């Protein structure tokens, strides 16, 4: 079947036999955007987190058919080196990543949180950021989340971010 997707503000038309294929694999292997990670395929680790119409969604558990007509944002669309999203900027300033594999999922989850709660408390962070990081970079992540909140409140948001 043919599906029309909008990913990072770009329209794509894909041909896919199984409309229940997880959105993750379409993003990674058909659209060649590798920043969204496979960690468990069970919506448990959060490495595959993307935004669907601005909401955090775990793409390994999201049939691609549901994505038709929606705005999908991946880590590649969140920001880039020239125009980083405040969350990415904060991640750089706090030097958060170690192995780095889970980090896009965490940044996407954080960006979604900051859209809802501009200045999250530690409790908000504990409840909403429940991805898994085996390097256990949580200590710096928490600092980076608070920093991102500060960056977002004092700086104008870049145009390209967050469809």
């Amino acid at each position, binding site marked *: 079947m043919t599906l029309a997707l909008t990913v990072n503000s770009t329209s794509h038309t894909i041909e896919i036999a199984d409309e*229940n294929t*997880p959105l993750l694999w379409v993003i990674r292997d058909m659209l060649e955007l590798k920043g969204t990670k496979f960690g468990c*395929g*069970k*919506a*448990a680790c959060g490495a595959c*987190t993307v935004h669907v119409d601005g*909401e*955090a*969604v*775990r793409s*390994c*558990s*999201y*049939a691609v058919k*549901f994505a038709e007509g929606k705005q999908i944002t991946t880590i590649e669309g969140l920001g880039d080196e020239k125009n980083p999203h405040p969350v990415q900027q904060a991640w750089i300033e706090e030097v958060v990543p170690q192995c780095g594999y889970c980090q896009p999922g965490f940044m996407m*989850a954080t960006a*979604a*949180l900051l*859209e*809802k*709660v501009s200045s999250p408390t530690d409790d*908000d962070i*504990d*409840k*909403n*950021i*429940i991805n898994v990081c085996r390097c256990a970079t949580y200590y710096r992540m928490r600092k980076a989340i608070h920093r991102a909140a500060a960056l977002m409140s004092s700086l104008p948001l870049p145009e390209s971010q967050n469809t």
Partner: protein
Amino acid sequence: MNVKIALIFSLLLFAGLIVGFTDSVATSEYTAVVYNQSDSPLPNRNFDKMMDVLTHQRCMNCHPNDNIPKQGDESHPHNFGVAGGENDHGFQAIKCTTCHQPENNAYSGVPGAPHWGLAPASMAWEGLSRAEIAESMLNMKTNGGKDHKALVKHMTEDELVLWAWQPGVDASGKLREVPPVSEAEFKTAVKQWFANGAVIPSE
């Protein structure tokens, strides 16, 4: 005597189906388990059938008394500290819909149905007796203002309620257990129980 034998026979058949069901990938049908409604010796047959369903973990897991959804056939607290939050649909950014979509996902084993979420705290059934659950359900102050007609419609037509009979596979690919009464039977029992005045038997 005949009635007893028929009942035992159908119970055995039912047990066999349950056992067979766990190893089968086919969707279960309960058509073999038909109680003879007019001859039943059980006075509260409709109520009991309805409650057999409502107290099953497919229903109870999302009617908790602590805002924490339960998971699995043994009803453990939802992994990762997930809770219903203020609106029973999750926290600000991690919502039920972050993982749960309008239908089950066979690849991840994450269950799904429209408006997936917790029942409101007023409809917390965890820890209540069958009669107390029924009272809570009938009370328009706690049930979201539903009269009998609306309740029947909710219980026999709502997709999230009826998900209990299409619960899909879990994370390890095993089919989830369904309530011990078939969907058709449940609907009939609900309709008859309300039609007969929604009488809650004394415990």
